[in-house]
């Protein structure tokens, strides 16, 4: 009995990033139409090609919306979203262009301090450069100069549009076209900011890059877009984190991430997603509908996705790899946790096109409370992908008798030289495992946390060190009170 109680206590801890920052906001009116898009584009002073692209995306999205073609196949339930009742652009009021940190609204700076992401460079862990995105805009990017020395461009998307339009024009939409899916179209039309990374030929990015996303304003949606390009032989490791305040209504977050890895390049993309998950009765929380995709365009390139998904009321995301170049490698490591009334439908797509391409998928799902956790993944080995290889493992852990864990893998093989393995298991934390650990002097809580950490270790060890520690802590907090 005591085990169950401890476990329940453990899941009931509060969301501690739920505070609101009061800053003056520069908001556009609610709703979405071509004028709003023109306004967003004008506010950002974008060149003509961006506006055209946004409008094309909007028209496509509008036709989808009119024909009610929003995706319904995912194993998640939510009421209809009123897309006209969302603010598509909100930014803290600021002076025309920020030259240094001193010019940022001190309230915003304080927010990041409270979140544990100080933007003052001296205080940061030496090895990480941060781009901080607050509602619809990027407020600061640290270590820019140091990175520029190495030739790495790391800036907000708006700056990239201004300063490197040729790169943006070349790669924007090259991996996730604006027609890709309902939410990607919406994002393409209204995206406000995000991060842009360009690592030139042969450069190994000298530090970890990171973006911290914060939703603050009420009734807004966050639509950011990240584009990472690694030229021949380049290497970059990128991490994103996210939080939002506690609010009773749902907020929409529809992001798009595009990665392009050219010959011999490696991109490592890690996410620790901790959007506000809603309260214990399932009120409020973020709808996290994200399209992430990487293209291994050149031979021997590699893209590795690692994600720890603990927040959001609903998570709908499938970081994918298109393995186009010969010998390219795709990896996907994921821990997804659903507690209370959270729902997650997440997984990956590995599309093998080039010869001798390999992919690894390791997915760990943990469901507690009334949480519903779904792994949905596709491994497709096309005819030309001779010698392709895939290994997939997806395990689920059930905590409590009201939650659900589901696995929907799709495996499509059109090539006789391909080898692929898939295995999955679902089980609960064994009484005997807890008993064993308690017998050795661990409290029930420690025992549970140890078992869960063991369960997720394969994924955590893929995370950059500092974040691995954070992720472990996050997991134990998100799980408080749910192991049985």
């Amino acid at each position: 009995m005591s085990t169950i109680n401890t476990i329940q206590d453990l899941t009931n801890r509060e969301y501690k990033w739920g505070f609101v920052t009061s800053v003056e906001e520069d908001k556009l009116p609610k709703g979405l139409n071509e004028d709003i898009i023109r306004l967003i584009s004008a506010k950002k002073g974008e060149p003509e090609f961006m506006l055209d692209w946004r409008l094309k995306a909007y028209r496509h999205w509008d036709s989808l919306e009119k024909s009610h073609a929003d995706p319904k196949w995912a194993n998640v339930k939510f009421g209809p979203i009123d897309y006209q009742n969302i603010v598509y652009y909100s930014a803290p009021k600021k002076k025309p262009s920020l030259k240094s940190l001193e010019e940022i609204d001190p309230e915003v700076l304080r927010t990041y301090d409270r979140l544990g992401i100080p933007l003052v460079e001296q205080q940061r862990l030496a090895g990480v450069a941060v781009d901080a995105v607050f509602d619809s805009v990027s407020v600061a990017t640290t270590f820019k100069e140091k990175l520029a020395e190495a030739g790495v461009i790391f800036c907000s998307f708006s700056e990239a549009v201004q300063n490197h339009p040729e790169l943006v024009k070349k790669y924007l939409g090259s991996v996730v076209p604006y027609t890709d899916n309902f939410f990607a179209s919406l994002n393409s039309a209204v995206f406000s900011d995000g991060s842009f990374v360009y690592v030139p030929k042969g450069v190994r990015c000298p530090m970890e890059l990171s973006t911290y996303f914060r939703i603050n304003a009420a009734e807004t949606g966050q639509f950011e877009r990240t584009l990472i390009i690694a030229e021949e032989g380049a290497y970059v490791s990128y991490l994103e984190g996210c939080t939002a305040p506690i609010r009773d209504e749902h907020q929409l977050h529809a992001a798009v991430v595009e990665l392009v890895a050219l010959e011999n390049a490696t991109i490592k993309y890690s996410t620790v997603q901790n959007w506000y998950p809603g309260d214990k009765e399932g009120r409020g929380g973020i709808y996290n509908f994200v399209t992430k995709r990487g293209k291994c365009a050149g031979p021997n390139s590699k893209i590795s996705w690692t994600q720890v998904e603990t927040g959001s009321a609903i998570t709908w995301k499938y970081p994918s790899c298109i393995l186009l170049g010969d010998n390219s490698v795709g990896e996907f490591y994921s821990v997804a946790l659903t507690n209370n009334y959270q729902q997650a439908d997440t997984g990956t797509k590995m599309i093998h096109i080039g010869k001798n391409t390999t992919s690894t998928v390791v997915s760990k799902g943990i469901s507690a409370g009334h949480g519903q956790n779904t792994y949905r993944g596709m491994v497709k080995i096309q005819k030309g992908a001779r010698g392709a290889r895939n290994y997939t493992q997806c395990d689920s852990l059930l905590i409590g008798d009201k939650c659900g864990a589901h696995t929907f893998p799709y495996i499509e093989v059109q090539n006789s030289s391909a080898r692929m393995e898939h295995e999955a298991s679902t089980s609960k934390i064994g009484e005997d495992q807890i008993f064993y650990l308690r017998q050795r002097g661990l409290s029930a809580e420690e025992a549970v946390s140890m078992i869960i950490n063991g369960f997720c270790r394969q994924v955590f060890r893929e995370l950059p060190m500092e974040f691995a520690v954070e992720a472990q802590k996050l997991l134990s907090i998100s799980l408080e009170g749910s192991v049985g």
Partner: protein
Amino acid sequence: MATAATERLRNYLEAFHTHGANEAGRPAWLRGLCERGFARFCEVGFPTTRQEDWRFTNVNAIAQTPFQLARDARLSGAIYGDTLEACRIPGAACQLVFVNGRFAPELSDLSGLPPGVRVGSLAQAIAQDGGLEAHLGRYVNIERDSFCALNTAFIDDGAYVYLPRRTVLEAPICFLFISIPGDDPEMTNPRTLIVAEDATEASIVEDYVSLGSGVFFSNAVTELVAGEDAVISHYLIEREDRQAFNVSTLRTQQARSANVSSHSVLLGGGLVRNNVHPVLGGEGGECLINGLFIGNGSQHMDNYMLVEHASPHCSSRQFYNGILDGHSHGVFHGRIIVHKDAQKTDAKQTNRNLLLSDDAQIDTKPQLEIYADDVKCTHGATIGQVDEHALFYMRSRGIEEASARGLLLLAFANECLERMKCRPVRDYLQDLVQGWLPGTSTPAGADAVRAGEAARRWEEVG
């Protein structure tokens, strides 16, 4: 497009009217059942690949063909002599022969049955027995599957088995469904009902073969009800002509501690869909789903498994092996659903596939859907080739490559055959499968040859 669809439905409407007129003397409940089935079928029509359950199988070829109800082709026994002999499983308790979906008593052998056991034609059973109402059509879900709705609309004949309490039958009960394609595309909707009372034991074989070549559509539905402690195994052999369409559905309902196994061996047919849907409705039930599919040419073989754990303490095992050569396309869709109260469920699912040619394709979709927490569920799927090391080992010991390859394939197929408990059926299938494996002593096109022979015999006599 819409007019074409209506046109095709009219085809079925006419068939439904002739079917209804012939069966005017049937009980009201059955007429109601057929009408419900037909109404549902008209409502939804044939599935498309946009539907999740049919994602990898396009049934357009069936939807586009104007099928007529199969004509009565029961002729004297002499014509079938050799074919029948070849399809007879030595040691069977009885063999019922159905020609184009109709029971042919003169070709059947019912002599070896113990008293009390009823094995016969469903049409006769309906005419004699009101007791069928309690079971027929009660288990198959016509809402979910329009092929089941179509079959239900055209319930006519098929096999009926009733095993009274404590019956133990060691020898298998065999049903042979012979399709004889005519000049125009024809369809049959054989319906089988198996009611096994408490503590019974039996093996039942459904065998589908073609006589001659041509477009033919068999849309079979079998309902199997297993009482408490019953041990029932069901075998499906599909070896029709390459132009044949075959959609078969096995729906089993298991009571407490019942043990049901379903074994499928798919060898023939052009477009084959094999649905197996057991519901573990009583505590302590066990269920084994075992299958082998060997595709070649342009065959399409779709295996759709849906295992529902509706009670606690049940266990289920699924094993499917596929061997695909030529341009064949294999599909495995395995889904385990564990309902909320089905605690202590133990479910396993394994799908292994060998791809022998670059043009062959396999799509596999093993799924777990779990709403209870105290469960042990796993699934696994692999796709690969014949192990080069094993081949090398055998060649280094003087076995030529072709035979070595054949041996490995045979061993792979045997994994499935060895799970079959009923000795006579297993022995029969081992011989049969060997002939269908690519690269074994009998050429890969054995079915075509055999079908050709059968056709010739048919001409000689007729």
